[in-house]
C-alpha cells in the first residue's frame, strides 16, 4: 500500500510539475540562482579556511630568544618543561651558530649578512603550539623564564594574531548569516510556487479530503514536487559552479597573488552533497509549509 501511495504521489508530482511548467521553471530558476550564491559562499568560505589554516600554522609557531648569558643546562631544562606541556606540539633548540647559518642562507638577507661582524643573533627555542588560542599563554610563560632575552623576548605579535582570529570569526559568522538568508529566501520561493500549484488543484484536494485521504496522502505529491524542483535547481547550480570554479581560482590567483588561493577538486564532492541535500530539503520544507493550510482536514 505504501508503494502504491508513493507511486501515486510521484505520478501526481510529475504531472503537476509539467502542468504548471511556467511556474515550476520560474521556481527552478530562482532556486538555482540562490543555490549558486550559496555555492559561491561555500567555495569562498572553503578558500578562506584554506588560507587561514596556512596562516594558523604560521602564527602558532613562536620563537623564544635565549639571552647570551643563559647556561645551556638552564635552556635544556626549559626546553624539557615546554616539551612536557600538552599544549605544545614540538620544541626545537636553535643555537646561535645555527641561527646565523639560517640567517645567512636566506637569499633575502644576503647584503645584510655580508655586513654582520661576529654573531649578534640570539639562540632560540622554536615552539610549535598545538592550538592557536594557547599561543598567548605560552608567550607569557616564555617571557617569565629567567633565560629569555629581555630586550627581544619572543617574535609573538599578539595584537595581529588576535585581530586575524577575530576577522576569521567574523567572516565565518557572515558566511553563515548569508547562507541562512539565502536558505530562507529559497524556502519562501518554493512555498509560493507550491501555493500556486495548490491553488490550481484546490478542488482536487477538497475531493481527496472528502473521500477520506489522509493529510500525508494529499501533501505527499506536493512535497515530492518541491523536492524535484530543489534537486533540479541544485543539479543546475552545481554544474555551473563546477565549470566556473577552476577558471575563477586561476583568475583570482593572477589578480591577487598575495592570497594563497588554490583549486581543490576534492571539495567538489562535498559541495555536490551540500547543494543537493540543501535543494531537496529546501524544496520539501517550502512545499510542506506552502501546502499546510490547504491540506489541514
Amino acid at each position: 500500500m505504501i508503494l502504491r501511495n508513493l507511486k501515486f504521489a510521484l505520478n501526481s508530482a510529475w504531472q503537476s510539475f509539467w502542468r504548471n511548467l511556467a511556474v515550476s521553471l520560474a521556481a527552478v530558476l530562482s532556486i538555482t540562482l540562490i543555490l549558486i550564491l550559496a555555492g559561491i559562499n561555500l567555495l569562498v568560505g572553503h578558500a578562506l579556511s584554506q588560507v587561514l589554516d596556512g596562516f594558523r600554522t604560521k602564527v602558532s609557531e613562536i620563537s623564544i630568544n635565549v639571552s647570551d648569558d643563559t647556561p645551556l643546562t638552564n635552556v635544556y631544562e626549559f626546553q624539557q618543561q615546554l616539551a612536557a606541556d600538552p599544549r605544545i606540539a614540538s620544541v626545537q633548540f636553535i643555537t646561535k651558530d645555527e641561527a646565523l647559518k639560517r640567517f645567512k642562507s636566506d637569499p633575502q638577507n644576503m647584503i645584510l649578512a655580508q655586513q654582520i661582524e661576529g654573531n649578534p643573533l640570539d639562540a632560540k627555542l622554536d615552539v610549535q603550539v598545538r592550538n592557536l588560542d594557547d599561543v598567548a599563554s605560552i608567550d607569557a610563560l616564555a617571557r617569565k623564564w629567567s633565560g629569555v632575552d629581555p630586550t627581544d623576548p619572543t617574535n609573538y605579535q599578539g595584537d595581529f594574531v588576535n585581530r586575524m582570529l577575530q576577522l576569521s570569526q567574523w567572516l565565518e559568522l557572515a558566511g553563515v548569516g548569508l547562507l541562512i538568508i539565502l536558505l530562507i529566501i529559497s524556502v519562501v520561493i518554493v512555498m509560493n510556487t507550491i501555493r500556486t500549484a495548490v491553488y490550481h488543484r484546490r478542488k482536487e484536494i477538497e475531493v481527496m479530503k472528502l473521500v477520506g485521504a489522509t493529510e500525508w496522502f494529499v501533501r505527499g505529491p506536493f512535497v515530492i514536487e518541491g523536492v524535484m524542483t530543489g534537486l533540479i535547481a541544485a543539479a543546475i547550480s552545481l554544474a555551473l559552479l563546477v565549470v566556473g570554479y577552476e577558471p575563477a581560482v586561476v583568475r583570482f590567483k593572477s589578480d591577487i597573488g598575495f592570497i594563497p588561493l588554490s583549486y581543490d577538486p576534492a571539495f567538489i564532492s562535498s559541495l555536490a552533497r551540500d547543494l543537493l541535500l540543501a535543494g531537496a530539503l529546501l524544496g520539501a520544507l517550502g512545499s510542506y509549509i506552502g501546502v499546510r493550510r490547504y491540506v489541514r482536514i
Partner: protein
Amino acid sequence: MVLTPDFATRPVISFQHVHKTYPTGTEALRDVNLEVPEGDFLFLVGPSGAGKSTLVRLLIREEKPSKGKIFVDGVELGRMKRRKLPHYRRKVGLVFQDFKLLPNLTVYENIAFALRVLGEADHSIKNRVAEALDTVSLYGKENTYPANLSGGEQQRVAIARALVHAPRFIIADEPTGNLDPATAWEIMQLFLRINARGATVVMATHNREIVDLLRRRVVAIDAGQIARDDRSGRYHDDFAKSEVRAQ
C-alpha cells in the same frame, strides 16, 4: 426490498443538544436532538439558511459543534482526533449538488479516485469501479470526461464515487438541486437502491415532489431548530397531520 430501520436499537447517528454558532456570530443550529437508526432514509427539509447544510457539515466533520455531542457509530465526532478523520470519512459516501467531479479526470478515474486514496490495488479498483458503474447504469462511459456528460450523468458519476468504497452512510446535500424532474427521479431511484442494500441515507433537499412521493422520514429544520420529525412525512407540515410522529 426496503429495509425497515429499527428505531428500538441503538441509533447509528445521534445528535444530542447540538448547537452551532459560527465565528461571525451566526447561530446556525440550536439544541438539535436527532437519532438515526441503521438503514434509515431521512430527508432534511427546510428553507434556505435554516441549518440543513450546517447539519450536513457537522455530520462529515467539516465543522465541530459549539455545544452538544454528535455520535456516529458510537464515536463522538467532536472529540475525534484529526488523524482518525480520514478513516471516518471512508465510512461515508458524500454526494453534493455541484457533483464535485474533477474535470481533468475521466468517469473511470473520478470513481477510481475514491479508491486510490485508500491505497487499493489496481485490479481491485477495476472490479469495484465496474460494479459501481453498473449500479448507476453508466457502463460504456468510462473514458468520457465530466464536461461531456449531462447533469444527471454527472450526478450518477458522483453517486458511483460515493458508493464505490461500500460506505455505511450516504450523506447527500441537495443531490437533485441542479437536475430536471425526470432526472431527479432517476437519481432518487439510485439512492433508494443503495438504501435497500443497507446503507443509511441522510439527504438534505428542497425537492418537494420527491419527498411527498417517497413518504420516508422527514426532519424539518427551521431557524436552526428541528421543527418536525415525521417517520413517514411530507415536505410541508399541513400534509402530515395524520402521520405517525417519530418523536
